[in-house]
């Protein structure tokens, strides 16, 4: 299996060269990037679909693809955290490392300190090895990538015995829109998801074993479940929900089997019956129960903030969907960024083609699985679970709900990949007169699904690194911004109340260790920073919001906000600045007599407003 590994290495090299050129000059190197990405995926797909591979070879090919795709994420901006979510968790990690205790505060993501699983394990590695936070975080996520691929393969293998189907399903999971970047980021879901897969694998394996091994595997499953509960809210809800549904389905099936047996032969006693029913439940029934207690206990005693964090996002998505169904609201345009920047025609064709291919494979996979053999209860649940995919497609038409839909894909793709693999197996195992043509079509469909997943999960503007543009990028990964944030961390007191644009604010709030002000602090950052002058209203915002510092980035001047905003999503309701923010707006604090301009690095200025505070 050296050929897929060789192609993967070449693919990584292609991506590195393409990214380097794009980062330095902003050159369009998308074609080379795509060649690299497909070199990683397609040879592996051909090997797993058509070559004679042993189980261990299949796992090694999958691990190679998984790690190579992780390297693609690393190569975006080597040696730094470039994802917005990564900076949010970096802040929690930094607080733990400095304070040595958990449950600190984080102005960027207030719920993060209450799910400290990821940061705890990273902090331990940093303290024991002396690695930098960025290096340790990279290693932790690399370990989670290995765990994701192996656990998922083992789960699929226990749902459908041939290793090839499990391997193809695992490979198709890598087509999930969040697999390339989002779930490779230093964020709590990246750790919780593989732990959840490992938990399901342990409980499913326990179901098929007896005696001590069964009990021990249930115990291991419980340990993994509890680790998920303290690591990520949504993953823990979905995992416990899955276990509950799985238990109920097992219970119903066992009761039905008993009633069938009653008709043909004498049934056992009542106690025996209950013992048998419980025995067949995942984790003998007690692990799902423990999950419910743990999730509710954690939510009510430690992470009460979670409900206030999640509910508004979910409700706005649902409300928007209802408005669209009633023809009361405007829907989100597909393949178009919030700022109105559209994707190329080829990307649109591939994106739509991949969705159509998936929608076609779902019924085919279901038929194949139904015909082949009686499925386990979990297998049947996975089969039905794939139907959630079309439902999330509806959320893509909403402006606020598409993010919820995008976040759910990591969970939905597990059952979806299983059913898609079965759908592909229905073609690949069929005897045809043109086997080579059949193989070519299947390879093209798998590649189409993978490319479509990347198109759905990334924007053409942010797929590759480019010179920093505050109108596009959510995190500034340029040296000047990092140097400014480092100066802030070194020179200014921690937790100073900062107002900045969303991109620089993320850096100042994490690397700079400041309190990035937002609407959650009842401060309208956009009203303060978008006003052309500092008048009475702005002075009131400063004094009431106790704004200690503001950051002005000269690169904002004249930059159209292609990502939809510069400061806050609703900023145009505060001040409609036209196509871009003007120079007088950015430089207005220079004419404010009481303000101290305490930092200047050319593009970035920081002002101390403490003399304006009462």
């Amino acid at each position: 299996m050296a050929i897929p590994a060789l192609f993967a290495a070449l693919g990584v090299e292609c991506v590195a060269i393409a990214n380097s050129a794009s980062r330095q000059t902003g050159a369009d190197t998308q074609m080379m990037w795509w060649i690299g990405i497909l070199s990683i995926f397609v040879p592996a797909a051909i090997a797993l679909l058509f070559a004679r591979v042993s189980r261990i070879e299949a796992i090694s090919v999958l691990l190679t693809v998984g790690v190579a795709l992780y390297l693609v994420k690393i190569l975006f901006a080597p040696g730094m955290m470039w994802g917005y979510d990564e900076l949010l968790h970096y802040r929690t990690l930094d607080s733990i490392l400095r304070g040595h205790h958990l449950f600190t505060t984080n102005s960027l993501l207030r719920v993060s300190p209450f799910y400290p699983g990821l940061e705890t394990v990273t902090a331990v590695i940093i303290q024991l090895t002396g690695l930098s936070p960025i290096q340790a975080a990279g290693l932790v996520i690399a370990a989670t990538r290995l765990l994701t691929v192996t656990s998922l393969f083992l789960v699929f293998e226990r749902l459908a015995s041939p290793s090839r189907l499990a391997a193809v399903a695992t490979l198709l999971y890598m087509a999930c829109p969040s697999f390339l970047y989002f779930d490779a980021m230093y964020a709590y879901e990246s750790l919780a998801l593989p732990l959840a897969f490992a938990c399901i694998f342990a409980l499913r394996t326990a179901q098929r074993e007896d005696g001590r091994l069964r009990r021990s595997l249930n115990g291991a499953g419980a340990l993994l479940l509890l680790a998920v509960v303290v690591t990520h809210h949504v993953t823990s809800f979905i995992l416990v929900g899955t276990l509950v549904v799985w238990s109920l389905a097992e219970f119903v099936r066992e009761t039905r089997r008993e009633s069938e047996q009653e008709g043909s032969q004498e049934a056992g006693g009542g106690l025996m019956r209950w013992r048998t029913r419980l025995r067949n439940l995942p984790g003998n029934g007690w692990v799902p129960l423990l999950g419910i207690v743990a999730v509710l206990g954690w939510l009510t005693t430690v992470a009460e903030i979670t409900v206030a964090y999640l509910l508004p996002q979910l409700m706005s998505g649902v409300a928007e969907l209802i408005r669209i169904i009633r023809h009361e609201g405007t829907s989100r345009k597909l393949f178009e960024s919030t700022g109105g920047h559209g994707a190329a025609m080829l990307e649109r064709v591939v994106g739509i083609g991949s969705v159509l291919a998936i929608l076609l494979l779902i019924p085919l996979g279901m038929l194949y699985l139904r015909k082949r053999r009686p499925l386990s209860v979990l297998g049947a649940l996975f089969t039905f679970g794939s139907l959630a995919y079309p439902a999330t497609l509806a959320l893509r038409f909403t402006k606020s709900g598409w993010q919820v839909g995008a976040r759910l894909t990591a969970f939905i793709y597990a059952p979806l990949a299983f059913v898609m693999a079965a759908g592909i197996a229905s073609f690949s195992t069929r005897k045809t007169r043109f086997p080579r043509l059949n193989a070519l079509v299947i390879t093209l469909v798998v590649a189409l699904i993978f490319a479509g997943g990347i198109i759905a999960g990334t924007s053409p503007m942010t797929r590759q690194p480019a010179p920093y543009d505050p109108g596009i990028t959510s995190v500034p990964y340029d040296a000047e911004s990092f140097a400014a944030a480092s100066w802030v961390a070194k020179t200014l007191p921690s937790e100073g109340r900062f107002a900045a644009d969303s991109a620089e604010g993320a850096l100042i709030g994490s690397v700079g260790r400041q309190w990035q002000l937002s609407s959650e602090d009842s401060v309208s950052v956009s009203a303060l920073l978008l006003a052309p002058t500092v008048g009475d209203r702005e002075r009131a915002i400063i004094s009431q919001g106790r704004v200690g510092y503001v950051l002005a980035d000269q690169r904002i001047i004249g930059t159209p906000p292609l990502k939809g905003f510069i400061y806050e999503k609703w900023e145009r309701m505060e001040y409609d600045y036209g196509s871009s923010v003007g120079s007088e707006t950015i430089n207005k604090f220079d004419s404010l007599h009481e303000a101290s301009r305490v930092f200047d690095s050319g593009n970035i200025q920081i002002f101390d407003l403490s003399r304006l505070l009462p």
Partner: protein
Amino acid sequence: MTRNRAIFLIATATAIAGVVLLLAEQGPVWLRVLFGLPFVLLLPGHALMLLVDPSERLGRAEWFALSLGASISITIFAGMALATTTFGLNASGMILLLTLLTLALSFAARAKTSAELLEEAPPARRNPELRAVANTLVLMTCVLLVLMAMTSGVGADGRGSIVQLWGVPAKSGGVRIGANNINAPSDSYRVVIEQEGRLISQQEFNMPAGGSRVFEIKKTATFTTRSPITATLADLRGEVATRTVSVWMNR
């Protein structure tokens, strides 16, 4: 190798790693990585698996996934437990706690495994491709480690010349003016410090890339608190644009 020896090996490896990590707390990073990563990501889970599956009915892939997952979970809970104590999350405490936990799991595995099983060799799982798999994994891991080693610290796009000028009120009552040359090739600069157009100080100095300078302006009777002190940094070679700060002294 019998199961008894396998358990003994894990316990010994844990004890050695624990001692090395304790002794080398300020030691070279490579040594701490060599012992620290398996100590956190492998040994606790592997010890747990010896307890869970003493007869090794599960395959290698199953052992790998559960060992890794369990190691991470055990580390999370051990870290959380330590963080709730007055000692907080610290290296020595974590090394001791993980060593004790892993040793306890190894001893539990030894105690729970029957005498016959202990002296029995686990089922042979030789696979001709295993070496190739290991080689691939090692290669990929090496690439990852080399990448991380090459890119330690803060990443940068390497463009532009970054020179910072800053000024903050000093605790003594005056102001501190500082300049940092992050990566600019130019190394000759002039700083001019003024108040209300009146020159306070002017200095020319060398500041190569990576260098920095700090100027302390002490509060004297000639300074006023009606207006800020301004500082301007100019690149004498004219490659970097002028930087300006204006700082109010503490009232």
